[in-house]
């Protein structure tokens, strides 16, 4: 922390963590109370006591104990003795050293896959609640690390942290209901949403509720603004850009794309595709099921594609960009000091160089020019002047960059028919040519990002097609 000594920092953290753990304790206490009062107490295990009686270890009791543990943690942390409520330094070092963009991206993907496959397990309230608690605990334990604190407690990063928790909650809620509905559908029962589909009044049921929400939210925003005022950052300067220089949090996913794509691609083409693609969904979607209720099994393709696009390609990249990208857009572990002096080796190679120089052992072919043509092939000068750029571009595209061009064309032109003939045969049949082609191209565009990331990680590949002469890179 800037200008704070170790002790001063610990003091500051302690004054935050005390109330934090108390809040967690209350949260669990309320959960236990709720279970108890709403008669959802379940005995998980009976502990036989001498005298023939048995002590029932119920869910309410467990959460009560958890609440007590948090209360104890609150006491410890609040007293300023934060070393007891920290993650061990060695553990933090391991996390710092073992994380990186690859691990992070692949790891989140794998995690999402696991969550998806075992969703029936993870959506169980007790499991979800345990995970929920662990998430908070992890945050609390990490706060004592000055570098972690520095990032997470920065007032404009706080919404990102809130977002992670909110997202977890709502994803759980949706999945929970979807799993439940899927089960019911399998059993031939009506879905949950159907159980409760009485019509309700606009006034007071809708408008009144909205009014209350509006007031409550306004009050919340005021409290937030008072307690966590927006930070003043450094003065804008034409000679010095902030380091790291970050987009607004909701665009950080896009900014992350810049690492892998040409700015033109990542900044213009892909965002346009996202917007266009989102708009196209209603026209592409042919599956009538799932209207008005949560389900996964009835529309697995839509579900998986959307969740992958949203959670993996958007949210996790925002989290990555906000919390893990530091000065010079280097990756920093969550407990790593954001040193502006950290340098990462960035030696990326274009596909054409791989192909011509490394594979064939020859130099890169240059661009064609009318001037080089035999005289009988030369057009008049004015025409040559006009056509030369085109000739150069296309000669590069199909000369020097031929491997990349072939790959890209193959990917976007050859792959959709193959898809239509193989795994997406049923889709093709139901959608017709145009709808399928639009869908397939959008899908391929979406897939190109992870593919490009993997290529970068595995081969240090810079661009598949690289024609910097015409600002055309892919």
């Amino acid at each position, binding site marked *: 922390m800037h200008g704070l000594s170790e002790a001063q920092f610990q003091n500051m953290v302690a004054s935050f963590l005390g109330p934090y753990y108390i809040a967690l304790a209350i949260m669990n206490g309320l959960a236990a109370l709720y279970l108890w009062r709403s008669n959802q107490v379940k005995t998980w295990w009976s502990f036989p006591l001498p005298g023939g009686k048995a002590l029932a270890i119920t869910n309410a009791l467990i959460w009560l104990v958890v609440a007590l543990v948090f209360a104890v943690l609150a006491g410890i942390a609040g007293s300023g003795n934060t070393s007891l409520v920290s993650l061990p330094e060695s553990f933090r070092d391991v996390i710092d050293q073992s994380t990186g963009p690859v691990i992070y991206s692949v790891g989140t993907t794998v995690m999402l896959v696991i969550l998806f496959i075992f969703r029936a397990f993870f959506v169980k309230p007790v499991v979800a609640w345990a995970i929920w608690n662990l998430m908070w605990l992890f945050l609390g334990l990490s706060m004592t690390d000055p570098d972690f604190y520095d990032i997470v407690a920065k007032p404009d990063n706080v919404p990102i942290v809130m977002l992670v928790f909110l997202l977890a909650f709502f994803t759980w809620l949706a999945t929970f209901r979807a799993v439940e509905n899927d089960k019911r559908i399998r059993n031939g029962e009506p879905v949950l949403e159907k159980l409760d589909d009485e019509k309700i009044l606009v006034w007071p049921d809708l408008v*009144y*509720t909205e009014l209350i929400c509006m*007031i*409550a939210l306004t009050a919340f925003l005021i409290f937030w603004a*008072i307690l966590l005022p927006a930070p003043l950052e450094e003065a804008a300067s034409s000679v010095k850009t902030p380091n790291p220089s970050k987009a607004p949090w909701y665009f950080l996913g896009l900014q992350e794309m810049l690492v892998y794509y040409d700015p033109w691609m990542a900044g213009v083409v892909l965002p346009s595709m996202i917007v266009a693609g989102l708009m196209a969904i209603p026209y592409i979607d042919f599956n009538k099921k799932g209207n008005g209720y949560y389900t996964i099994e009835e529309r697995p393709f839509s579900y998986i594609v959307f969740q992958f696009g949203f959670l993996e390609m958007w949210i996790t990249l925002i989290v990555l960009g906000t919390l893990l990208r530091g000065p010079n857009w280097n990756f920093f572990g969550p407990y790593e000091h954001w040193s502006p002096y950290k340098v990462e080796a960035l030696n990326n190679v274009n596909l054409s160089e791989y192909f011509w120089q490394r594979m064939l052992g020859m130099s890169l072919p240059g661009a064609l020019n009318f001037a080089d043509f035999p005289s009988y092939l030369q057009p008049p000068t004015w025409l040559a002047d006009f056509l030369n750029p085109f000739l150069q571009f296309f000669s590069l595209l199909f000369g020097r960059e031929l491997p990349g061009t072939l790959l890209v064309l193959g990917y976007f032109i050859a792959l959709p028919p193959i898809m239509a003939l193989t795994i997406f045969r049923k889709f093709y049949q139901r959608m017709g040519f145009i709808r399928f082609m639009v869908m397939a191209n959008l899908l391929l565009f979406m897939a190109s990002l992870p593919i490009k990331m993997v290529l970068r990680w595995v081969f240090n590949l810079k661009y598949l097609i690289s024609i910097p002469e015409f600002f055309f890179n892919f």
Partner: protein
Amino acid sequence: MPASEQTWRDQKVMHIVFGATALVMVIATLWLLAKDHNREWKKTQLTNRRKAAWVVQARHDSMADQFSGKMDTYDADIRRASSEPVDPSKIDEFKKLVEAESDRLKEPAPNWAKLDAAVTDVNEAATVAAEVREKVQMVGEDENPVTDDDLIAAEEKTAKERVDVFNILDDYISEARRREKQIAGQRKFVAADRTATLSQLGLMVGEGASEKRKAEVQEKITGYSNKISELTESLAAANNYRTSLDGIRADIDATRANLDKDRGVMQTELKRLADQASAMQPTGASRLGEWITRWPILNALYSGNVRIDQIWLPDLTINYNFSQAARFDRCKTCHQDISTTAPGTATDPAFPSLPEEQRNLTLKLATPDEAPKESNLPQEEQVRQIYGLVMSNDSLVGSETQAIVHYVLPGTPAAAAGLESGDIIQAIDGIDSYDKETVENYLLTLAQWGTPVELRVRRGLDHPYTSHPRLDLFLTDSSPHPEKVFGCTVCHDGQGSGTSFAWTSHTPDNADQQAEWIRDFGWFDNHHWIFPMKPARFVESNCLKCHYSKGELEPSERFPDPPAPKLVQGWTLVEDYGCFGCHEINGFDGPTRRLGPDMRLEPNYSEVALQTLRDTSLNDQERQLAQELVLSPDNKSIREQLFTALKADAKLASSSETRAEARLLETTHKLADGLKDVEVPGTYRKVGPSLRFLKSKVEYDWLYSWIKLPKDFRPSTKMPQFFGLWEHLETDPAELAVSKKYEGVEIRALSEFLLANSSDFQYLTPPGDVTEEASAERGKWLFESRGCLACHTHNEFPGIAANQGPDLSRVSAKFSNEKGALWLYSWIKQPNRYHVRTKMPELYLDPIAEKDANNQPTGKVTDPAADISAFLLDQVVDWQPKDIPARGWEGQEREALADLAVEWLTSDAIPTKRAREFVTKGIPDSLEPKLKADEKLLLKKNFTNPTEQLQNFVARRTISKYGCFGCHDIPGFEDAKPIGTGLADWGRKDSSKLAFENIHSFLAGPGNPKKHDTETHAAADTADTHAEAPVKSGDPAADAAHASTDSHAEEGHAGGHGHLDPADFVNDGISYYLQSLVSHSRDGFIWQKLRAPRSYDYKTTKNKTYNERLRMPKFPFNEEEREAVITFVLGLVSEPPADKFVYHPNDRQKAIVEGKAVLETFNCAGCHTMRMEMWDVAFHDGDFESPVDVVDFPFLEHKFSEQEVAESLVLDPRGRLHSRLVGQPVMNEETGEPLKVDIDGLPIEPDDMESDPYYRFTLWRDTLIDGEAWFMGIQDPMVPGSRTDYGPAEGAAFPAWGGDLARYLFPKVIAHAKQANPQVKGAEAWGWLPPPLMMEGEKVQTGWLHAFLMDPIAIRPAVVMRMPNFHMSSDEAAKLVDYFAAASNAPFPYEYNKQQRQSYLASQEKERPERFAEAMNIVVDGNYCVKCHAVEDFQPQGDPTTFGPNLANVHPRLRPEYVRDWVANPKRILPYTGMPVNIPYNPDAPYLGGVAQKLFEGTSLEQLSGLVDLLMNFDLYAKRKTQVSPLVEAAAAASAPAQATPPESGETGGE
């Protein structure tokens, strides 16, 4: 679903939820409002108001208390005055006036019976009253005691009677007034009529009325006019009459009226204070009103209550990166009283900001000898009566009430103890006190009677409630930086528009303060703000934004308290240590635009010329030009001629056709570029000596030792340490070994190269006429008295230290061989022969012909240069160069040399293997065009002696690497550029551009400041071993500790911050810098850079080549000097404000500032006093006697203006007078110390603790003390001295500027003179020493001074040393001349001397044709001038110490007014002079005094002016006695037969 009343949610619950959220919303809104409303500055303002009101109230109460005592007396006095008898003579006078007036008006004589009766009544009553008064005073003796009441009754009766008398008198007066008014009224009417008639006449003239009618009207007008003049007369008479009556009446009542007036003054003052207090802290209804207007929303309508106080500075912009924005400084919002001065003063702060160390005091309050009597009075009153102390339970700022001194009555024990209003008494005799009752109780009952009680007192206020400490310099309207013009942040930085403590970017001064701020104000380091406030320690840095010359910031007459001492110190250090040799500080952007201070090396013209001279093929003209240019590098025409000549040759060489015609070497051609014009040339000379002729000066051994560790030979040297800085390598033996290996090679190569590469030097030899052998004994006295000590320090002379030149104590060890002795002699005799740009002057050490007691030559001739040289070489010094490796490169050393050469050669183009091949075999000649200059040394064709070539190659590379040429003239490096980062904008350098590297780990580990300090201390004890083995402590425990801190550091670094808690270092004074390093700030960076310049290499060397390692040397700065340098460097921001804010001196100020720089360059102040001491003396009425009266020539009179007199009589709040004395105390003739005397003027023994010390103070400027004029040269006032320190008992003593040597030599020359003549007068000894130069400008003519400075001549025979020749440039001399003139307010650059003009002389001589001859009578009379002065060929006889300058040479030298004043009364100009008043002035004597009439007929004034005119025109006088015509005629006659005279010379003959 059909519509129904049923809702989905229970409405009741919804209502409750709605209610709850609405409530939360209300709370949020209120909180929002409160948060917005409760700004910290509002509280601060209210507190400040309370404080100010408290202080005013305390002053009011104190005054009321003092007045209330006086008030009783006043009442009695007034009663007494109004019961005085009426003087009958006054009444008679009154009567006479009335009667005369009645007579005049032909009115019946008035009846005086009533008045007479009344007067009788008064006087009877008054007699009774007087009797009663007498009885009252003799109370107790009478059995019928009368009481005060009786007296009052009697007095009242008299007063009543007096009123009767006055009533009668008033009747007459009012009658007189009535008459006066009546006449005035009449006149008004007549005048109106006249005006009307006049206009009537005008109209008639216009209308062409008849003459007759006009005449009638004219007559009317005349009638009116007559009437008016009549009335005017009688009005005057009536008025006179009335005022006379008034006067008499007032006279009778004068005593009472005066008393009344005095009392009125006191009452008005009290009322004023009371009003002021209540305005600041209103009570009652207005308080309520104020409170209401402070409410939210309401306060927007009315902002007079608490409000943001801002200064808008549209032109003094702040740089917001994209644009220059106007500054809004809101600092005064909280610092409300920052510019408030104490009442009645212009610059004293009203609420002084005391430094923390002065805020906690322990005072001793005397107690009565025995316990105070029991009394019914309240405790408070008893304390007031016994101690004069009034206390209250209150708090000035803050909420906690404490025992505060409300006020102290003057002249009481409390006042004597030094208690002041506002002091918080924290403890009394060690017992904590929280309220006044404790204190009072202790003082009345518990104290040990007769012994003083000890009070622990907290004095002063916290920020922001105090005033600025330097209101003379800042904020006030009379200061040079008024707040309305400059605001705050331009000097302090910080976020001026902020109104909360945290956001204004205050910067703590140390870790303690930071912790305190975090706790109290929620401070944080807002590193996003580009201009954080400067911490207190660097507050002076920002002066550099507008002040680009050091002289502007030095103490001056107007601001004797140094305005920016730390900054000036830093500036001087940068100059002295030559930082600019490597780190250019370019203060120019283009030829005229200034950015900041400019410190750059002067162009190397001299060096280039010297190097050119090495070319043997120069032709004679070129050689001569080059030789001239060497001595006068500022001579543009010579330089251009040489440049053209060399370039012409270069042009020949550049073309293949003419190449054969070129004579000069290629290197010479290249050199010529160094002679080009420079846009704005630098002005600084290289700080080190020239190494051009090094081999003629020192030997290899000494040189090796010096380069290795300069301070080994000379501990006080300014040369930094380049080698052996290995602290940061301690933990890395392999890297350390590399350093050791290569540094050895570098030192050796450098030593060999510098000697081999140097030019030949022609030593000077003693002149032939010297008869005596050199004598160290004579040399010692010469060394002391010829001025060497003004610049050098030497162990033999402990009383004086100077650092302009090196400490010479050990030079004998340096020059212990024949070469050294020869060199030293040449150097002493003519320094610029060896080093052209040296600042060491030529001392004119010509052979001295010894004289005997009768001033006759003895035939012995000594050589002072040889004597001084002998003295210096005679010193026994046990220093020896040690550990010097044998010369010649053998074995491993040769390999190391080759290895280093390989390191240098290796580059991307030349791989290591190839480089090694080159180094062994030489570089193929074919590669020559691609090689850099130094690499050409290794060409095969040059490779005859590979070792030598390698050595020279490495040496040249090493010189380039370390930038040796930044300080020294090294042949072959004339065109080298400074190697370091420019510092011109370092103060704004983005800290992300600074390479902090592993500095935290270093500081937490091996470089831990605490450990380091102890280590160096230890090392200092074991002296020399430090350089060899700085690390080996040999103590296993220490090593273990070492290791553990190391591992600590590793661990800490992983987290990004070393385990250094700056708070641990608060007491060491370095916590600030550690803190700054921890947060990566530039001041921390530079601190460490200066402290351990190479430490940023910690743990980085492994991955760099040897030559990439850091190279900055370590300068021998201590912590204080380091901070001063940092202060200076941080001020270099290259961000000049709008031009009108930059300091633009007027011509005079500019001359002073520029002159100061030259004065400092040549250390003029080493010998001469440039400014006398200045004592600001505070004293009480009567401390000084009255001065004696002076009768002197009228033109010598110094009249002080009435305002000056009035100012000198002003009492300060403590009732003291002030006077500023300029001069110096009389010195003891034996010790040279200021003489302390007792009241009778007898010297005080050092162990005398009883008598009050006084200084007899020789005034060097006329001054006013207590309204009385004291003139210099007439009488020395006795100044009460401080018992403990030097200076006045109360007030301040500001030291003199310069003259250390004169003061040091004062007792020595007296002792020396007494050997020859025991009768020598001590005070005159000042006249043998370098003269003070305060008034030099008024004294000498500018043209003469310029020539004198360029080429000094001997003037006064009495002096022990003469002005040396500094070989300064004409420009420098001109700056000095202007300086002297400007500093003494004399006209410059030219002056007009009327007395030397033909017209003047002609008009004078018209009246007295023989004026010169008569004046000459005075000159040649044995009693006057020629007694002591030589005149042309005449030499006086006797003791040469009493001789004055040759009078024939006065006319070009001195200004006429000066000569006049000097002859009139020399002591008024030089108080110490032995010259008497020769032409006395006596207004009562015939001819106004003067010399005998037979010498010069006329008054003393005429005699004086005749004498002055003669002296000022001595050349004319002499010229008139010369006849050329006879010579021409004789010559013509002699040559006539030989040849015919050409007609031209015939013309001359005709004259």
